[in-house]
């Protein structure tokens, strides 16, 4: 555990060396927010309604901002990182550490999220709230969002690690992670709210992990979970945990097999 904290601390320092990459979102997001405000104001006024597909005006505008808020909780670059270290042979030095690659990279992913929350999420929330106040937010909804977001982070990490392991076979997995990102945006509900898609399609999406990484955290963030909040929290959380356990088991089995194929290029 101490090791874990030290790795987090170390990566924290590294991330801070490049803190300006994070802060860039802070410049772009307000512009998008203004565009969305103008767009949805005219849509809501034209239709003379206060709710579309169950989304109030603030919720609708914030939906798109929420997507980036979620990313600062769940994003990681593990899939490409594994590929890079296999192609360059750097994985050899990772294997010399008395800690599993899985745990080492998890620690690095966690610390990168701490930095993102600090320089992205926190100032972002203040800036965005000044532009359009998130009236929908309550303490209860925010706390349940945090729980779902942490689980979504773990799920996303495992999913990324599993995809990253494909590099053991195909070496460069850029295409896989590109496809994953597109799917995650569309199927996960990052592009448009999933309520705009047909019911049968949503049924299919329910069977994929993407919704539990993006869509559900957004729903909890926007305080849009219908009925009993606690019940939904338990229900969604359990599905996330199921995915997490499943991915974890598959990773453990596959890693043992694939690591034998690693040939530590160079030198």
């Amino acid at each position, binding site marked *: 555990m101490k090791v874990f904290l030290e790795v987090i601390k170390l990566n924290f320092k590294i991330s801070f060396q490049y803190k300006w990459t994070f802060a860039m979102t802070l410049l772009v997001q307000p512009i998008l927010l203004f565009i969305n405000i103008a767009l949805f104001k005219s849509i809501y006024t034209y239709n003379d309604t206060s709710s579309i597909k169950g989304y109030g005006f603030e919720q609708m505008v914030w939906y798109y901002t929420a997507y980036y808020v979620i990313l600062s909780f769940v994003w990681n670059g593990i899939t490409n990182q594994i590929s890079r270290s296999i192609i360059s042979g750097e994985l050899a030095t990772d294997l010399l550490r008395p800690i599993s690659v899985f745990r080492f990279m998890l620690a690095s992913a966690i610390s990168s999220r701490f930095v993102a929350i600090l320089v992205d999420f926190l100032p972002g929330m203040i800036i965005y709230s000044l532009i359009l106040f998130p009236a929908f937010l309550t303490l209860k909804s925010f706390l349940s969002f945090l729980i779902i977001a942490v689980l979504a982070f773990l799920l996303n990490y495992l999913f990324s690690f599993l995809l990253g392991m494909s590099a053991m076979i195909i070496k460069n997995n850029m295409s896989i992670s590109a496809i994953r990102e597109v799917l995650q945006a569309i199927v996960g509900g990052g592009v448009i709210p999933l309520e705009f898609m047909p019911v049968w399609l949503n049924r299919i999406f329910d069977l994929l992990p993407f919704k539990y990484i993006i869509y559900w955290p957004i729903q909890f963030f926007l305080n849009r979970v219908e009925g009993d909040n606690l019940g939904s929290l338990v229900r969604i959380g359990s599905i996330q945990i199921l995915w997490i356990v499943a991915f974890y088991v598959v990773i453990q089995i596959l890693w043992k097999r694939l690591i034998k194929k*690693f040939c530590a290029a160079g030198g």
Partner: protein
Amino acid sequence: MSEYIIDVEGLKKDFKVHKRDKSGLLSSLKSLFIRDYKLVTAVNNLDLRIRQGEIRGLIGPNGAGKSTTIKILSGILYPTEGTVNVMGYTPWTQREEYVKKIGVVFGQKSQLVWDLPAIDTFALNKQMYSISDKTFDNNIKYFKELLNIGDVITKPVRQLSLGERMKCEFVCALLHEPPLVYLDEPTIGLDIISKEAIRSFIKMVNKEKGTTFIVTTHDLSDIEDLCENVSIINNGTIVFNNSIEKLKTYFSDKKVIEVKFSRQINPSLLEGFKVTSSGPYFVNIEIETINTSLQDEISKIFKELPVQDINVNNINIEEVIKHIYLS
């Protein structure tokens, strides 16, 4: 534990390599659909035993299997066949436990965190290897003095020179006081002063802490300076395994006679000798002591040539190694 710290038997490692006959776009397009694989045996039936406290040199031509052997021994690679016993561990199956007991320096790879000062990597290692505060502080102090890196370890690694970085890599590998350290080409690209600093450091640690070192290198002066015993790997297997002294006298029945002349000579004078190299003022003559006695040869030289200076040497170590590499 047996008297050997490392005991390797019948080690074999095959790599499956994707083969493409021609260069060019068409053939790489073709390789999308039809792929030929070739099995390359990097290490083949290799046996190796190393005693506690040794500094063992591991040399061999490029692609002989040195690095592959080191990578198997340090738990990175899985071998195809064979058994390895290092301090009672099988490196690749007990990797996480085993790597706590070893240190590794790769001359061509860095274990330091690129963006941060080396001291941050040391702090991480302190936790990973559960090094006590006292040992950590003592070792840092010890290495700082020995390697003269007081200022170096607080600068970001990306700003260090190669020599400074290598010194930090050594600290990184030795901080947890492992009984066994693998060095894969540790002096590659270093200048003569840095090389000497690194070598005397290795010798010092070996003497004071009894650390066993396994060194691969292409620099024979490393081997001559550091090792008592040397193993030569060629085509994936050990072809020579003995002391440096034995390597120097490998061709014990061959001698090289170096003659300097007092004046320029006519090349026709050298016709009766087995000349390996010559110039207007010197000649190197190789003799086989089984066929010709040294005494006869020297008296013949004195009789026929204008000798100013004469030296009798063993075949030099580079020639020996070249001979072993090529055979």
